[in-house]
C-alpha cells in the first residue's frame, strides 16, 4: 500500500510528540485518512463497511501512537461518521431510484414489484440505524445491524444481478468521491476554525475590559486580535504558563499588535483575578460532559475565576470536541513531560543518585489539567457559543454512536 510509509511517518511523529497543537494534528490526521480512503481499492459490494474498516485500522494505529492527543481520535471518528453519512445519503438516493424504477417497471412484471421495495426499506432502516445517535433502538439493533447489511444486496442482487453490479460499481466510486469531498470540507473547517471563532470576539469583549489568559493558544490570540481590529481597546493579563512559558510569546505578539498586555507569574493568578473581567483560554480537548482537558494550570485559574465570579470562557474548534467522558481524567488523560523542564538535571543529579542520598526525589510535570464543567461559563466553538451542558448534543451531531470506541472494536471484532 502506498500510504503505509506516510502512515508510519505520521505515527512516528505522534509518538515522538513532534506535532504540536491539536489543530495541526487534526489537519494532518484528516489528510492522512483522506489519502487512506483515496488509495483504498473499493470492492463492488459493501463499500461503506470496507472503507470504515480500513479507516478504523489506520485510526487504531494513530490513536495508539498518541492517546493523549484526543483530536486524532476525534478526526478518525468524524471521518467514520462522514463515511456512514455519505453511504446513507447514497442509499436513500438509491431507494428513491428504486421507487422510480419500481413504478416504471410496474407494468412489465408485477410479481417482482414488492421485492425491491421491501429490500430498499430494509436497507434504509439498517443504514439509518448505523447512523443515528444512541437510542434504545440502535442499541438493540446494533447486533443485527452488521449482519443485516450484507444479506440485503445479495437478496436483491439475484434477479437482475448484472445491471445492479454495474450500478454498484458507479455507486462505490461515487461513495469514495463523496467521502473524499466531505473530508476535504472537514479539513477546510479545521483550517478556518480560528477565523470562525474570532468572528464572535466582538460579541464578547467590550471596551476597557481586562482579560486574563494563561499560556499561549493560537485560537485565543486570533480571538483577541479580532476584537482589537474591531477597535475595541482592552487589556490582557497573560500568565506565563510554566513550564513552557508560552505566555511570554503570546504577550509579546499581542503587544506587537498594539494590545496592552501584562505578563504575570502563574502564582499571581489568584491575586490578579479580582481585577479581571473575563478569563479566555484555549483548550486541549472538550469532553462530552462539558469538561475541558486544558493546558496545565487552568484548573487553578478556573477555581480562582469561579470564586470571584469571573466568566471563564473556553475557545475550542469543533475538532477538539471529544465524544468520550472523562472518568478519571487526572490519571487517564494526562501526560507527564520531562522533569528537565522543572529541574536542572545537572544541579540535582547528586540527589537523584539513590545510592548516595537517603531520600528520594520525584519530579512531576504533567501536561494537562482537567477543568470540570461546573467551572466553565461558556464554550465558544466555530458553531457559536454553547453551555457546557449542551456539549453532549453538539457532539452527537458530529459523531455516530458506533464509532465512540474506535480502539477496542477492531481488535475485538477482527
Amino acid at each position, binding site marked *: 500500500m502506498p500510504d503505509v510509509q506516510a502512515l508510519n511517518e505520521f505515527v512516528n511523529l505522534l509518538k515522538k510528540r513532534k506535532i504540536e497543537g491539536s489543530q495541526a494534528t487534526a489537519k494532518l490526521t484528516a489528510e492522512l485518512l483522506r489519502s487512506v480512503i483515496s488509495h483504498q481499492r473499493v470492492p463492488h459490494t459493501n463499500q461503506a463497511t470496507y472503507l470504515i474498516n480500513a479507516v478504523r485500522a489506520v485510526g487504531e494505529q494513530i490513536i495508539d501512537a498518541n492517546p493523549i492527543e484526543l483530536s486524532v481520535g476525534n478526526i478518525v471518528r468524524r471521518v467514520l461518521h462522514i463515511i456512514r453519512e455519505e453511504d446513507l445519503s447514497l442509499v436513500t438516493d438509491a431507494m428513491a431510484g428504486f421507487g422510480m424504477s419500481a413504478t416504471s417497471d410496474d407494468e412489465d412484471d408485477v410479481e417482482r414489484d414488492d421485492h425491491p421495495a421491501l429490500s430498499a426499506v430494509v436497507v434504509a432502516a439498517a443504514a439509518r440505524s448505523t447512523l443515528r445517535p444512541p437510542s434504545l433502538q440502535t442499541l438493540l439493533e446494533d447486533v443485527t445491524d452488521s449482519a443485516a447489511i450484507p444479506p440485503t444486496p445479495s437478496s436483491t442482487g439475484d434477479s437482475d444481478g448484472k445491471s445492479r453490479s454495474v450500478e454498484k460499481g458507479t455507486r462505490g466510486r461515487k461513495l469514495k468521491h463523496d467521502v473524499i469531498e466531505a473530508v476535504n470540507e472537514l479539513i477546510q473547517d479545521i483550517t478556518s476554525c480560528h477565523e470562525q471563532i474570532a468572528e464572535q470576539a466582538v460579541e464578547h469583549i467590550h471596551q476597557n475590559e481586562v482579560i486574563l489568559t494563561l499560556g499561549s493558544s493560537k485560537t485565543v490570540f486570533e480571538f483577541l486580535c479580532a476584537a482589537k481590529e474591531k477597535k475595541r481597546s482592552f487589556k490582557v493579563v497573560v500568565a*506565563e504558563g*510554566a513550564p513552557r512559558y508560552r505566555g511570554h510569546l503570546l504577550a509579546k505578539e499581542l*503587544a506587537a499588535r498594539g494590545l496592552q498586555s501584562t505578563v504575570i507569574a502563574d502564582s499571581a493568578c489568584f491575586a490578579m483575578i479580582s481585577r479581571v473581567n473575563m478569563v479566555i483560554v484555549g483548550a486541549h480537548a472538550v469532553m462530552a460532559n462539558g469538561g475541558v482537558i486544558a493546558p496545565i*494550570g487552568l484548573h487553578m485559574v478556573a477555581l480562582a475565576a469561579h470564586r470571584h465570579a469571573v466568566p471563564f470562557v473556553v475557545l475550542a474548534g469543533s475538532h477538539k470536541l471529544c465524544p468520550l467522558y472523562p472518568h478519571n481524567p487526572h490519571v487517564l488523560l494526562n501526560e507527564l513531560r520531562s522533569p528537565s*523542564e522543572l529541574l536542572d538535571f545537572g544541579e540535582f543529579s547528586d540527589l537523584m543518585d539513590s545510592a548516595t542520598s537517603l531520600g528520594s526525589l520525584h519530579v512531576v510535570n504533567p501536561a494537562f489539567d482537567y477543568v470540570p464543567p461546573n467551572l466553565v461559563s461558556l464554550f465558544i466553538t466555530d458553531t457559536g457559543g454553547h453551555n457546557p451542558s449542551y456539549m453532549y448534543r453538539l457532539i452527537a451531531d458530529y459523531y455516530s454512536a458506533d464509532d465512540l470506541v474506535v480502539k477496542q472494536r477492531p481488535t475485538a471484532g477482527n
Partner: protein
Amino acid sequence: MDATRVSHSLGDPKIRRVGFFVPESSTTDSCKILSPRHLSGTLPDMQTSVDGQVSSQSNDASENLNLETGIEKREEGEKKVLKSRSKPLKEKTTKAERRALQEAQRAAKAAASKDEGSKAVAETGGAATGRSTKQSSQKKVGPSFPLAADKKAGDRPLDKDRKKDAPPPRMQFDDESRMEKARRRAVVNPTESRTRVELFKHLPQYEHGTKLSNLESKFFHLGLVHPSVFEVGQRYSAGDIWGGNARCVAMLRALQDAIRDYCTDHEKALVRDLTSKINSYVSFFTECRPLSMSMGNAIRFVKSRIVNLSTNHSEFEAKRTLCSDIDQFINEKIILADKVIVRHAFTKIKDGDVLLTYGLSCVVEMILLYAHELGKHFRVVVVDSQPRLEGQVLLRRLVAKGLSCTYTHINAVSYIMHEVTRVLLGASAVLSNGTVYSRVGTSCVAMVAHAFRVPVLICCEAYKFNERVLLDSICSNELGDPDAIARVPGRMDVNYLDNWASEDNLRLLNLMYDATPSDYVTVIVTDYGMLPPSSVPVIVREYRREHLLM
C-alpha cells in the same frame, strides 16, 4: 519652669481622666488615653502603636475639637504657635515611620534644632530624658490656658484611642504631592521604572539594579547610617536576605549593632535622639526594600523599649538593656516561637501522610525535619513557582536529610492535590480579618487545597500578626524586579522576552505577595497554639497588651 508646674503636669494624667467617660481602668488602658504630646516620654504604647500618624492625627483630632469649643480653638492656635516655637515638640510628633524619611535628609537641620531643644530641657534641670522634654512642652502650654489644656488633653486621647486601632495609612505612590516630598527626602533615589504597571501605581516601581549602585556610591555621603545597617540594607536590596524571619533578625541585629555603637551627645536626650536615629535607619531599610509587616512589628517593639527606658539608667546601662531586650525578642518571638510551632504542628502529622508545602518557609522546613527525625513516615510534595524557585532550596535540603520528596510547579498543584493529605504553608503576616498575607502563590495553593477538601495549616509566629486588614492582593503589595519574570533560570530556550522593555505595550508584573482569604485556611499554627483564622484579632489585641507590659 517652677516646681508647681512640674508637679501639676506630672499629676495630670489622673486629674485629666476625671470627668471623661473613658471606662478603662487598668494601667495600660489609662496610659492609652493619654495624649502623646504630654506623655510620650513615659508611654511606649502611644509612641509605638500610633507610629506613622502622630503628626497628622493630632491635627485631625484638634480639628474635630475645634467645632466644639472656642477655647479649644484658641488652644489650637496656641498649639500651632507652640509647634513652630518648640522644636522638641515637633521632633516628637514627627516620629512616624513614614515621616522618618524626612529625618534622613534633614539630619543636619534637625540636629541643630535638637540642640536648641535640649538646651531648653537642660534649663528645666531635668535629666536628658523623655520625661523632661514632656515637661518642657507642657509648661509652654500651661501658662496661658491651663484649664483649656487640661480639657483638650482629656478630649483628644479619646479620639486618639479610637483612631489608634486603625493602622496608619501607607505611603501611596500615586499621590504626586507626597511623592514629590518623598523624592526630595530620599537617600537612595532609585530611578523610577519607565514601564510602570497602571494597576499598581500606588506601589513603588523602580528600575531594579539602579538602587544598589546608587547605594554603594553614596556610602560616604551617608554619615548617618551605621555601617552594619548599611550592609543589611544593601543585602536587602540585592536580595541576599529574604524570608520574613531572616529579614527581621538581620534588621534587629543591625539595630543592635547600631545601638551598641551609639553614643549620646551630651546635650541630647538619649530617648529622643536614639529614636530618631532608629527612625532614620528604618527609613533607610524601607528605601532598600519595603518593610514586611513583621518587621514593622519588630521596629515598634524596639521603639517601645527605647521610650520605656528607665530615666535613671546610665547610657551604658540603657544600651545594654536595649540590646538584651532585642536578644530576648529574637529568642522568644522568633526562635522559641518556631520551636513551639514545630511542636504544635507535629501533632497533626500522621504516618503515611502526604504533606504539601509551597516555596520555602523555614518554619515548615523545621516541622518536616522534626517529624522526620521523630520517625514519622510521610512524603513531602514541594510546590514551587517562578521567579523565585525557592522550593528548589527546600527540596535540596529535605532530600539531603533523607525525606522522600515530590517536586512540581504551581500549575500542577491541582494534579498533585489528589494525593495530598495536609497542606503546610508559611506566612509573611496574618491580618486581623484572618487574611493570610504571604508569598505570591500561597492563595492559589490554599484555594486548590480547599477545592479538594484538604486541610490547610498556616504556620506563622505570633509576632507576624498585624491589626491591618486586607481584602485583596492589589491594595498593599510589593513589586519585585520585572526582569525576573522574563528570565527563567536554567531554561535558555525561554527567551521570548529578552528585550521586553522596548515594547511599548508590554508590561511585566512581578508581585511578591498575595492575600489568602480566611475561608481557605483551616488552622493557623502559632506559638499561642492552633487557632482558626477568626481568632486572629484576639491574638493581635492580647499580643499588643503583652507587648506593652514587657
